[in-house]
């Protein structure tokens, strides 16, 4: 029970401290912090439409965040969710406007599955194999592949690109309308994509904590040498964990296309894949925590737009706030490290005669 409280308490505390410091900054530059936060909250949760938009904005963050959390659980850092998102998006949109005759429901599932497979290949199988058999670090490979993915998506709708639709706008044709995810709250951006995100979180939780696969994946993450000694196939789990991670990032891309954009447009600066890393960190890689953290970051972003409208505060303040939260979440791990170091130094000074690594309490 105590550990549960600690797990929930620390991220909440980190966010609170960040919010308070953000308020001080707002006050220092001449805005009323209460009004600023009031407009932030009302912009994110005040009414059906803002709430719908906040939940809608959390969908890609939750899905990609789940992917990153899975990789973290296996001791791997998938930094390339952004590229996996875009490469899967390209595939989903292509299928979306090429097979227009299909029944909507089948077409939808077809797009989701292809996006997941492509995301999985891009994020998992390629970097996973490179890591497992050639020792190439996944931070480098996922990041580099991510750039390729983003730039490829950009190329697709550039003049001469394979998916460019004729006309003034650089964009691809739209996905067949009967495959779009329907809206839950009218006039808001919330669609059934949110339900997909929730289901995905439950599935990830179940796989991680209630299957042998999940246990082995976490075992590899905790100590791969012990896992190998216990007879687990570590390279296989490296590939599968990164693959699973990419599948979720790919799903994020497809769901977003089917809910919001419906086509490739010039929106490559979304940064969902990067924010998702912070979402996973704040959630401490807990699938349900990812839902909350995703909604939290989406609320910051949705609310900040209203905050500008009501209080006239610059958009940059929310970036400051996000930065502070990340800092405190990271610092929360630094504090015990600093304390341990301090204690060790102190005890080291008292017992100089002890051989290195010697401990009195052992």
């Amino acid at each position, binding site marked *: 029970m105590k550990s549960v409280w600690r797990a929930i308490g620390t991220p909440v505390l980190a966010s609170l401290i960040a919010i308070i410091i953000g308020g001080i900054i707002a006050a220092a530059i001449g805005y009323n912090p209460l009004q600023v936060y009031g407009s932030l909250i009302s912009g994110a949760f005040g009414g059906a439409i803002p709430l719908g938009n906040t939940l*809608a904005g959390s969908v890609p963050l939750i899905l990609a965040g789940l992917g990153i959390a899975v990789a973290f659980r296996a001791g791997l850092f998938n930094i390339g969710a952004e590229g996996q998102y875009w490469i899967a998006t390209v595939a989903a949109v292509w299928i979306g406007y090429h097979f227009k005759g299909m029944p909507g429901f089948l077409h939808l599932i077809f797009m989701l599955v292809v996006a997941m497979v492509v995301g999985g290949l891009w994020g998992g199988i390629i970097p996973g194999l490179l890591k497992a058999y050639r020792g190439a670090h996944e931070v480098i490979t996922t990041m580099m592949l991510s750039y390729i993915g983003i730039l490829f998506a950009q190329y697709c709708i550039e003049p001469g690109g394979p998916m460019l639709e004729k006309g003034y*706008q650089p964009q691809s044709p739209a996905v067949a309308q009967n495959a779009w995810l329907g809206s839950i709250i009218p006039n808001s951006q919330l669609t059934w994509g949110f339900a997909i995100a929730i289901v995905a979180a439950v599935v990830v939780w179940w796989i991680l904590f209630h299957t042998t696969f999940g246990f082995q994946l976490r075992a590899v993450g905790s100590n791969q040498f012990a896992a190998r000694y216990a007879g687990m196939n570590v390279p296989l789990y490296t590939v599968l964990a990164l693959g699973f991670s990419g599948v979720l990032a790919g799903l994020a891309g497809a769901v977003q296309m089917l809910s919001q954009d419906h086509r490739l447009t*010039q929106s490559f*600066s979304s940064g969902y894949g990067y924010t998702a890393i912070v979402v996973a960190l704040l959630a401490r890689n807990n699938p349900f925590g990812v839902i909350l953290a995703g909604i939290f970051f989406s609320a910051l972003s949705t609310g900040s*737009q*209203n905050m500008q*409208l009501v209080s*006239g505060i610059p958009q940059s303040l929310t970036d400051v706030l996000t930065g502070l939260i990340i800092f405190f979440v990271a610092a929360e791990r630094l504090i015990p490290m600093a304390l341990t170091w301090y204690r060790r130094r102190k005890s080291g000074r008292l017992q100089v005669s002890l051989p290195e690594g010697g401990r009195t309490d052992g």
Partner: protein
Amino acid sequence: MHRKIMASSLAVLTMGALVAGCGTPNNSTSTTNNAGTTGSSAHASFKVGLVTDTGGLNDHGFNHLADVGLTKAEKDFGITGKVVQSTQASDYVPNLQNFAQNGYQLVIAVGFLMDGAVKQVAKEYPKTKFLIIDDPITGMSNVTSAIFNTEQCGYLVGAMAGLMEKQTGLKGINNKNVLGVVGGQQIPPVTSYIAGFQQGVQKTDPGATILVKWANSFSDQALGSQIAQAEISQGADIIFPVAGGTGIGSIDAAQSAGVYAIGVDADQNYLAPATVITSATKGVDTATYDVIKQAMNNKFQSGIQYFNLKNGGVGIATPNSAVPKSVITQVNNLEQQIINGSITVSATMK
């Protein structure tokens, strides 16, 4: 335990500071954005909302200029203006909706990336008027589109660059006859400038080589600098960046290499006074201002409004002292010829 105490004391401390912060008078907050409502306050109920694209207000380009136009309208007419900066593409629709929902009479969408969003929201709020910059939307009675014939000002700066190349003994101009263009992205608002530039150079200096390189970014200054350096090493001595924030880096690179640059969208001479010989300007500020005026006086016109050399919607900034008088005279002549229609400039790149 230790940590808990530390954390809670920190929280108490910051909370105290926060409360102290609340105590300070903040009465100025509500007025900061409507500075100078000294004009006819009768128009204060006329509310104009401006939504930037993801480039943000500090782009030294069209988002910034739209804000300049709005601020001027606030000052002159005493209207109420508010700006919301979009962080990502999915913010466009809610931001536009938000303004319409809050009773803003005119909502300005800066940038053609908001095409789909404006079409959707304008349909949902038929009583609200919309202005979209750089994007042709027709057939909606509550939407007006501002289109800028930037090929015309591109032509003039191109002609000036060509004439500069032909000068002898100008510091910083070599004999290789090469010009460098840094494009942000291959989209119509960018390519029209470059198309004009090419035709202008062709007119005054047909033998010149024009290097065109794409940054695929409007915000990467380091990349802009890198591309300009590459072009300079290939002999380019006048750099024309059409790339928003990316171009700021290109101008920096031109400055450090001791060659010249041409600004874009706004008069960018202030960035490097000796380097930026002139700028191809796009009057997003005047367009915004004009449309606000039209909407206020119930003279809103739906459909496309063209802004060109003739009506002062595009132009070139006053050249700096590096440009010889004879060059300026010739460029002014060409400007007259475009205005009276004896030269037509195409908006498509070669």
